[in-house]
């Protein structure tokens, strides 16, 4: 009995992998099969119209996985080429997007973490600032775009501003929450050891609140990566969001699907990076 149960447990990971691969194969297979253009002709001569259309179907189809894989191979084998404003490699476009996301995100962190500290430490500041936070927080970051474009008068900086404004709130609120929730005992340890307020903040409150702060940072980077695609569709020029929109205008759905997958993978990598930082500061009580 025991042996069989442990064997089942041991194989859980393997079974999960197997199932995931199976789902992938079945899914891609169905997609590939359904979306293949029908074999035309059947021995018959093509009509004049069919000849003009190059033998294509009347309704446009979603490109099959094989076409996307092919495109991925082409794009990824030369990701950094630059052939003019409308034709840049996926690597360059991703670079622009990451640059904007990280700039806006870091600016938000520089402001949100100290302000969150202040709000978390001082009930006065919490009550004074809370109404503003509650009003500003639910605003869609894209709603700021026209105002940002008008005030900043620069598309690039406006996109960064939108990232800044959307990633500031989770970091701010989580920092405040984490700081306010630091166990009284630990603060008392700092007090009985006569630590200065600055030392208390860095040696006790910051490490105690770090896991909560990192959670906020993780939520923020996720939101920032969601928003950058939409922001770049609006401001245009460069970036992965613009790439998607540009390929849509080119009616190149293969590239669109490829770009969607790339956005997903990069978002996952950003989250993984922050979660590994979070693991460094996590402690067990």
């Amino acid at each position, binding site marked *: 009995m025991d042996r069989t149960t442990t064997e089942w447990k041991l194989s859980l990971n393997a079974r999960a992998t197997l199932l995931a691969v199976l789902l992938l194969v079945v899914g891609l297979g169905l997609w590939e099969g359904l979306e293949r253009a029908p074999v035309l002709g059947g021995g018959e001569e093509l009509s004049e119209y069919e000849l003009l259309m190059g033998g294509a179907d009347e309704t446009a189809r979603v490109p099959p996985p094989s076409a996307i894989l092919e495109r991925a191979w082409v794009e990824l084998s030369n990701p950094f080429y630059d052939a003019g404003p409308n034709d840049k490699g996926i690597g360059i476009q991703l670079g622009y997007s990451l640059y904007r996301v990280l700039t806006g995100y870091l600016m938000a962190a520089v402001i949100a973490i100290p302000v969150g500290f202040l709000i978390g430490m001082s009930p006065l500041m919490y009550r004074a600032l809370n109404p503003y936070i509650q009003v500003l927080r639910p605003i869609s970051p894209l709603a700021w775009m026209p105002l940002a474009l008008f005030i900043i008068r620069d598309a690039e900086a406006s996109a960064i501003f939108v990232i800044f404004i959307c990633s500031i709130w989770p970091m701010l609120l989580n920092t405040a929450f984490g700081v306010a929730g630091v166990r009284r005992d630990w603060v*008392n340890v700092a*007090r*009985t050891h006569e630590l200065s307020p600055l030392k208390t903040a860095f*040696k006790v409150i910051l490490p*105690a609140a770090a896991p909560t702060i990192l959670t906020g940072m993780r939520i923020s980077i996720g939101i920032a990566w969601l928003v950058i695609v939409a922001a770049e569709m609006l401001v245009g020029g460069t970036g992965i969001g613009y790439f998607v929109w540009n390929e849509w205008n080119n009616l190149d759905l293969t590239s669109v699907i490829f770009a969607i997958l790339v956005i997903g993978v990069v978002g996952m990598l950003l989250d993984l990076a922050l979660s590994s930082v979070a693991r460094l500061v996590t*402690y067990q*009580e």
Partner: protein
Amino acid sequence: MSHAFVEVQQAAKRFPGSKGSADLTVFENVSFQLQKGEFVCIIGHSGCGKSTIMNALAGLDSLSDGAMIMDGREIDGPSLERGVVFQNYSLLPWLTALENVRFGVRARWPEWKESQVTEHSLHYLEMVGLKEVITRKPAQLSGGMRQRVSIARAFATKPELLLLDEPFGALDALTRGVIQDELLKIWSQDRQTVFMITHDVDEAILLADRIFLMTNGPEARIAEAVEIDLPRPRSRGEIVKHPHFYTLRNYLVDFLVNRASDLRTLSQDSRGLHYPRPVNPVAEASAPATYHKADAPASASPKLVNLSAKEKHHG
């Protein structure tokens, strides 16, 4: 000026009552003295305000009334001169055992070199038998080990007064005994003044020079100060064989079980400075009448320390 090392006079803690009703008085007219190098335990039922008295001595809590003086200076806020060991250990969970002790030593002597801080911390960790586990974090230590780290941290900063708030309350009896011995060992080296809360009568007899007995709250007070004149060094195994042990133990248990709640209604000492009545159960058992007479005038001392006037709400 009083010559006692720690002087507490007419301490009181009240919480404002809800609209219309009177204030809730947890304790009042608590006055006592601690001599330098003395080990004093305080026993009382839950809710009598022991922890409030201790937190006030630590400077973490404030009193509604009364004064606390240590070494001629009023206690006003926390200080490194008063080390605290909390019941729940209060170790910083993101630091290892060694780093937790270093945290205290570094705060105490900021000018020390890194190696000196480490060496000093290791010395105290070794004294509580934790040399092998210094790199573990609190979550990886047992409750007894955590409390040892906490004790090492408190003693390593060499405070003038050590405040122990039920340090062994959460430990099992076997672990508790071992750490009690370690505490006695480490205390007998430096002979710091110790003020400790406990619920355990045997523990108090083993450790203390004097035991303060508190009546039940609300309106609790320290009724008696029982002298434990058993010879030192004491050990858990030997102390129970001492002829006076059960006299003391019975006296304490009798107080807690039968008299702690009755004494509360006594209000003859609600005004004026009264120290707890010193009691020596051993002497009392042999000659009760003479002891009481000789003792009576000494219990009330008219000397009041003059401090800036604080809000009083007597009556």
